[in-house]
């Protein structure tokens, strides 16, 4: 940006790290988020800047409202989340669009084309269109930083929250970034504004008119926004694109004329019409849904897009070359070899709980976390996965639909972080509506799958400061569940007995299966297990829970890999021949 002092040589930054840097340089003072791949590292990098108050909120709706409050009070504020998190935050999102901002409000939302770590492939631009909120889309780390700063400026200039949309590929790619100093942004004074900040029907009517005029102004002014760039080359092929696909276009079609949109909602119509009039064939290259394409076509402009390119997954330069030029790019065939899907780690406490459920032939209504992996062989006990918190409420729905007896071979399984995110409401509903059923909280004292973030029951804040730690057992009791058990997740005998008894009861039972995530404990392993080959009958029972450290060799003998075993001892309980011995390590 003009007039700023550069403070360093270029540094290599992850897209998410660059977003954090952008918020810092923009003078942002507050950041709130709930972890979710691929957005998590934004907060993990913002926490490094003492000038920004940053927190993990229990869910995205709360995070969004925290940021809205900060904006109303007059400071620049940020909320970040993954695409499905935006659904959770949709309620405040749609209304803050009407309220607008005092201090700038930016929401970074990470989509996941290709489904690297998500339950769906939804397109945030569609949500933003429905909420009438502008969306900026950077295409590399450098722009990730700059666009966040630009987003804060737009937010304040147009009295609107601004979404900065990223994707997994951008968030998790590193590129060179030039650092600048933090802007000194003064807090805006707070002035009571009844018509703007109190969204009762009468006021919302007026604000809706404002939102519509804001959309028109942004669409018109977009013609001059510096984040939209036009590169005129050969006029035969013209491409409209944005974000990461721009990089693929540059690689695949270096000769093409390109309109790179920095703002993808609302679209700068005049700029697009002008570009379209100067090229022979217009292509629109966007990952996921045809959001740009459908609008451009609705203006009577001919364009090629999803008729030759997919709405699923990520694009690449080769894919674009093939679709547009018909070039048969050299692609050797991949070998047909065994897949390597993700698995529960050696020593994972979820494996212990799932092995008990499997033994008892109990099905689990599942939730979002590493424990979704309990759905695949050899454990195969998780039957459903929908969204955060859905395990408990869907179990309740089954009970109400089919009766108490029907769910006596079912439980709900949910992680500690997910329970606090939205599982809590579902449990409250079970109590309120006189349900029965067993809920197992897989309490590994962290938000595991996203890479170990603290939450309201770990006793630490995002900043690493000690704080009150919510007692899950007391919390469930306060909600009205009287039958709550806290059990060591590796005490399979006690777990088995308790689960067996609980599912037979005509009441709600919560079982908190507690043991820290195996990756959380960084201290050296002090104990491992090995197989006594003289006693081993090679029956394979120890392999039933699917621990990746235990493998069968070509000759049929079974071995425990000493670079992987972390000494949890679950396999010992499966051996009827006393053939698994512990080894003490230094």
């Amino acid at each position, binding site marked *: 940006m003009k007039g700023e002092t550069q403070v360093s040589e*270029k*540094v*290599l930054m*992850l897209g998410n790290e660059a977003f954090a840097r952008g918020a810092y340089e923009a003078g942002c003072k507050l950041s709130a988020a709930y972890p979710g*791949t*691929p957005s*998590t*590292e934004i907060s993990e990098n913002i926490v490094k800047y003492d000038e920004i108050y940053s927190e993990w909120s229990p869910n995205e709706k709360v995070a969004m409202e925290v940021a809205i409050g900060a904006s109303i009070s007059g400071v620049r504020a940020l909320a970040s989340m993954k695409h499905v998190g935006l659904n959770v935050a949709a309620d405040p999102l749609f209304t803050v669009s009407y309220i607008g901002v005092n201090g700038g409000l930016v929401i970074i939302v990470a989509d996941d084309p290709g489904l*690297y*770590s998500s339950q769906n492939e939804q397109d945030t631009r569609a949500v933003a269109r429905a909420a009438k909120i502008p969306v900026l889309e950077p295409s*590399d780390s450098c722009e990730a930083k700059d666009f966040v700063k630009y987003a804060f400026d737009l937010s304040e200039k147009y009295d609107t929250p601004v979404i900065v949309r990223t994707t997994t*590929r951008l968030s*998790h*790619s*590193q*590129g*060179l970034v030039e650092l600048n100093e933090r802007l000194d942004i003064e807090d805006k004074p707070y002035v009571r504004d009844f018509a703007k900040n109190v969204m009762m029907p009468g006021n919302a009517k007026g604000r809706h008119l404002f939102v519509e005029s804001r959309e028109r102004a942004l669409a018109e002014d977009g013609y001059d926004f510096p984040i939209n760039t036009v590169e005129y080359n050969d006029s035969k092929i013209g491409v409209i694109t944005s974000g*990461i696909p721009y*990089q*693929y276009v*540059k*690689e695949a079609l270096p000769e093409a004329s390109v309109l790179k949109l920095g703002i993808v909602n609302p679209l700068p119509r005049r700029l697009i019409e002008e570009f379209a009039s100067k090229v022979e064939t217009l292509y629109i290259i966007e990952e996921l849904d045809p959001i740009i394409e459908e609008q451009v076509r609705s203006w009577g402009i001919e364009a090629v897009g999803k008729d030759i390119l997919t709405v699923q997954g990520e694009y*690449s*330069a*080769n894919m674009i070359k093939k679709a547009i030029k018909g070039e048969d*790019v*050299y*692609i*050797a*065939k*991949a*070998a047909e*070899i*065994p*897949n*390597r*899907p*993700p*698995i*529960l*780690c050696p020593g994972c406490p979820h494996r212990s709980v799932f092995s008990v459920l499997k033994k008892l032939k109990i099905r689990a209504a599942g939730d979002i976390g*590493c424990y979704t*992996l309990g759905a*695949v*062989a*050899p454990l195969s006990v998780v039957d459903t996965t929908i969204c955060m918190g859905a395990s408990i409420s869907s179990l309740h729905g089954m009970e109400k639909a089919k009766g108490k007896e029907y769910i006596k071979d079912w439980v709900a399984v949910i992680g500690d972080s997910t329970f606090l995110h939205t599982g809590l409401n579902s449990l409250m509903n079970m109590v309120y509506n006189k349900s029965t059923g067993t809920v197992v909280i897989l309490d590994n004292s962290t938000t595991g*799958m*996203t*890479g170990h973030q603290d939450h309201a029951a770990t006793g630490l804040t995002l900043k690493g400061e000690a704080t009150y730690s919510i007692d899950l057992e007391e919390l469930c009791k306060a909600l009205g569940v009287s039958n709550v058990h806290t059990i060591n997740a590796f005490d399979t005998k006690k777990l088995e007995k308790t689960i067996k008894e609980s599912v037979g009861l005509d009441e709600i039972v919560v079982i908190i299966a507690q043991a820290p995530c195996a990756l959380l404990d960084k201290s050296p392993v002090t104990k491992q297990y090995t197989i006594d080959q003289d006693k081993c009958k090679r029956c394979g029972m120890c*392999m039933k829970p*699917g621990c*990746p450290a*235990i*493998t*069968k060799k070509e000759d049929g003998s079974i071995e425990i*890999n000493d*670079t992987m075993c972390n000494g949890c001892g679950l396999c010992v309980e499966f051996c009827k021949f006393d053939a698994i011995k512990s080894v003490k390590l230094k």
Partner: protein
Amino acid sequence: MDTKNIMIVGVGGQGTLLTSRILGGLTIQAGYDVKLSEVHGMAQRGGSVVTFVRYGKKVNEPIVEEGQADVLIAFEKLEALRYVHFLKKDGAIVVNDQRIDPMPVVIGAEKYPENIIEDLAKDHRVFRVDAIDEAKKLGNSRVFNVIVLGLAAQHMDFTKEEWLSVIEKTVPAKTVEINKKAFEIGYNL
């Protein structure tokens, strides 16, 4: 110089992210434009992971595509086989001779392919090392990935001194010496 394409493949948890940090530092130090693309999240839980590193005068696309890799660095041999079609015709494969069974093999649903390295060597330049074994000799099996990187360094355009200086800046202070030794072992193979 044409853009160089490096791929680092392995099993989630093997430390591909550390190696990509070292490679990234190296390319900036040499004044190149660079992009790296990594896998975070669920796939890191024991799944197949791949990191792309591209450097040159100006880099657009952050990923390496089929038939484009100059060097394929594999921390596990089944993963070398999985990604070998990404290699250029004259590209080099640097492979750690380690077998980690994926779950379909563990549960007996599929077989781990035999003679992977020999088969790869029929059509490609393959350089193998039993890096776990070499690292154990050094007293820390966890530095195996830097041994593999040392072997890969033989097939890239940077000097030994450049590599060592970046390793020094990238790894935790306590492990600088052992990582430098690990690099030398791979580099001198």
